[in-house]
């Protein structure tokens, strides 16, 4: 043994340990704990949601907009019938995120009467995550549009004005109006959006959102805020509204409705796809994220996909009536909403489907269309062209075509639905018609946990 070398090795080991020890501490697994409270500085706001100059903090008795939704000021649609003062005794105010903050934030961000409830749920999850992110950053949060517009009593002001019996936990009351129910249901699951690498992959994400954009979102300053195609947002009347990073509020409602209009009260024509779960909307707009519940448990699988556009090659782009023995070419534009790319090196990715009919069970198709290039997460989407030519002969009636992605490796074949728990995309097909009743294009998509 060379003592010089040994000494040198020991010295190197010492230096290495000296450098790496603090890093090791920093890298120690962190378990993120969702906060229950948020501290908010409350200011008088302008009608655009900005802090009013000179900056003026709300105090007991104040009736300015920003301090209360039941304000009494010119130029605002304050509630004409009543004026209620700022309801807190302190400023900044420490309030419960679930039973106070989010209930007043969500109605200020989206119109509860116009947006689909699933989109409002996605909005609530994004708003919660955005708050968590800022709390985790140590930001000095205020009630203005610099963060998220938070105006006390906004929940109570949802028309018709209704004051819950128990203000400390409004959603437990029985006297809520319909819009308040929708907000409560949106907030109730307590999910948040996480992004990171193990072991910090449960940290909240900076979930920016905005009002609307045509065709494609805009990349932001985070790896999960990359620009993605948003083909459902294609109506010519759409005007870009907001920064374009992350979730498009109106886009979310269009996907939840499966309609070219975001507004529940308008129908601009059905889109070829519809997403029924808030998770599907969120993984579309936020690339590679995970949804976690209040205890930090991951709810979304590692392998996921979203159909962006389906082409049926029919005049109205509805699924054709199919006849067994027939052949029906179609195409699906698919977004890889997983946290990982789909490479073609050593792994094989395909779109396929199952046929199902009540009383006849379910059968997997042998038709599989494989990717021919790497499909990166988020963007761009990949279009699978396939021909449906294996219609079972189960008699005339409504069948369900269940589209699914599958992964083939040397270890086996894994369907995204049954292996990982991501929903299939189900389409009702009239086979050997005519069918007796109109069946909606999309059936339930269920997350198999």
């Amino acid at each position, binding site marked *: 043994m060379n003592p010089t070398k040994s000494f040198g090795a020991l010295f190197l080991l010492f230096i290495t340990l000296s450098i790496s020890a603090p890093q090791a501490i920093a890298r120690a697994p962190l378990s993120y704990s969702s906060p229950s409270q948020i501290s908010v500085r409350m200011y008088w706001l302008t*009608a655009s949601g900005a802090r009013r100059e000179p900056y003026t903090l709300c105090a007991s008795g104040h009736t300015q907009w920003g301090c209360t939704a039941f304000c009494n000021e010119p130029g605002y*649609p304050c509630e*004409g019938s009543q004026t*209620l003062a700022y309801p807190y005794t302190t400023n900044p105010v420490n309030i419960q995120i679930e039973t106070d903050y989010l209930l007043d934030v969500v109605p200020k961000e989206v119109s509860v*009467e116009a947006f689909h409830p699933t989109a409002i749920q996605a909005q609530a999850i994004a708003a919660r995550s955005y708050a968590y992110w800022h709390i985790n950053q140590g930001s000095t949060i205020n009630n203005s549009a610099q963060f998220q517009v938070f105006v006390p009593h906004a929940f109570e002001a949802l028309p018709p004005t209704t004051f819950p019996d128990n203000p400390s936990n409004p959603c437990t009351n029985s006297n809520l109006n319909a819009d308040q129910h929708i907000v409560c249901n949106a907030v109730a699951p307590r999910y948040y959006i996480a992004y990171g690498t193990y072991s910090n992959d449960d940290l909240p994400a900076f979930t920016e959102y905005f009002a609307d954009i045509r065709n494609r979102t805009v990349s932001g300053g985070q790896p999960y805020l990359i620009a993605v195609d948003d083909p459902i947002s294609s109506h010519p009347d*759409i005007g870009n509204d907001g920064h374009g990073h992350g979730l498009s509020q109106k886009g979310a409602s269009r996907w939840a409705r499966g309609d070219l209009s975001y507004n529940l009260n308008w129908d601009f024509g059905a889109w070829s796809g519809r997403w029924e779960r808030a998770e599907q909307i969120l993984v579309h707009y936020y690339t590679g994220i995970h949804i976690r519940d209040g205890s930090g448990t991951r709810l979304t699988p590692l392998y996921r996909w979203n159909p962006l556009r389906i082409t049926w090659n029919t005049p109205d782009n509805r699924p054709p009536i199919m006849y067994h023995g027939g052949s029906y070419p179609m195409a699906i534009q698919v977004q890889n909403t997983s946290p990982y790319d789909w490479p073609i090196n050593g792994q094989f990715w395909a779109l396929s489907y199952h046929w199902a009919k009540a009383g006849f069970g379910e059968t997997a198709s042998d038709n599989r269309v494989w990717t021919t290039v790497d499909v990166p997460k988020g963007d761009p989407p990949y279009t699978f062209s396939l021909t449906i030519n294996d219609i079972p002969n189960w008699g005339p009636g409504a069948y369900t075509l269940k589209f699914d992605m599958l992964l083939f490796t040397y270890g086996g074949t894994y369907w995204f639905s049954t292996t990982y728990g991501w929903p299939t995309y189900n389409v009702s097909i009239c086979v050997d018609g005519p069918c007796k009743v109109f069946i909606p294009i999309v059936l339930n998509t269920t997350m198999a946990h």
Partner: protein
Amino acid sequence: MKRLLSIAGGVLGLLALGALAVILAFTFGGLRADVKPASQAFQSPIETPTQPPYPPPATPIPPGPPAMPTVAPTPIPRCTFAARSAPAEPATPLETYHFSDPQVVLTHTGAVGIASWLPDSQHLFITQDIPNTNRNSIDIFNVRTGELITYAERVGNGGKPIWLPALRAIAYVTLVEEEHHEQRISYRPELWVSYGNSQQVERLALDALGLSLVAEPDGKHLWYFSRSDLNRLQQLNVETRTIQPAPLDLTSLRYLKPGLEWAMRDRSPTFRMVWQPDGSQIALYSQFWTFLLDTQTNQVCEFDLGEYISEAMDIPPWALETQWSPNGRYLAFITTGTLSVPFRRTELTILDMETGERRTLSPGLDIAPGRHYVTDMAWAPDSRYLAVLGTVRITETGSEKEGIFIVDVDQGEFHQILSNYDFGGGLWGSQLAWDPSGSQLAVNCPTPEEGRLCIILVRPKGAQEEQP
């Protein structure tokens, strides 16, 4: 059979029209006994509806809130205008004016609000928030001498106080605590008058919404809605102090609009009103309706403030703020298509009341894609130009800052002036006023730390500038 039905429908239609005429006559008859002659410019006779009339309601409309009817739309006629454009009155070209750099004439530890100029163009009617309270003082500020006279103190910011020249007094709405239960404090708005200092004050009415408070052009009457009845105007004679409910009942005007039931269903927005300067017309506006009322004939008609693009807006454009031009030819509106605050954008809409020509302008810059705001406006006395505040940027600390834009309403063009300066950022609608002589603009120029009032001198180029 079809023909019989058609005839029966026609008869029913005629009956319905007759009923409507009776309702309108009853509703608006005697609104004002002492109205001035109608302006010749007003060309909005009730048109005979071309669409099949609606049947009359089966039961009388109940008075008072809830105001939203559940019946089919009432056929309020559309306003009509002259077919061809009348030539604009000659005006001095904008480029011949010089706008001085803004001079800070008042600083205050709280926010300053501009209510109006007094007729002498020397005194400015302002409010000043009293720090750490919900109170503000109502002051007359001499922009030349800096003298400040406090007329009253009030609670809350319920609308602009109003100068009553005949009494040399001010009318204003203040909040009075109504209920204080734990952290829930509710208020009642009361109408008061002050004769020159905070000791000489008198309560005029127990229930008056400040947002709706206006004075008739002759200054003898105040008009407002009360909280207890959002559908019936109250008329207060400032000399006798008598209050009379006007026969005008807005219930019949609050009709449900097809395609907007979802937004209107549970809302009863407050109406606001502005008098045409010669007193011949009133513009009545709220979130879903904009009406023009002829004060002599009591005819009412409705007009739109822009095209409804449902995918880009929540609801059709509606007016946050409305001002008549001094000559009564134009109505200027700050409009939005957003259903509730915070607004996504606001625009300037100008309606030529002679021709019906409508322009929608967006003076200012997008502070984010699609986000621009017009926050304040003030007519020049020549009725040709309009000064507006439009957002130009958002500061790093999240304040919105505005620039001053001069709009040529005849040409539909606008130009920013004094672009090196920031203005606004405070309470919308209380930040800008053009004096009656046209020679001074009062504008808010606050910082995050303090309220500031600035004066900009407007002079023909070459004229000697005075100090404010």
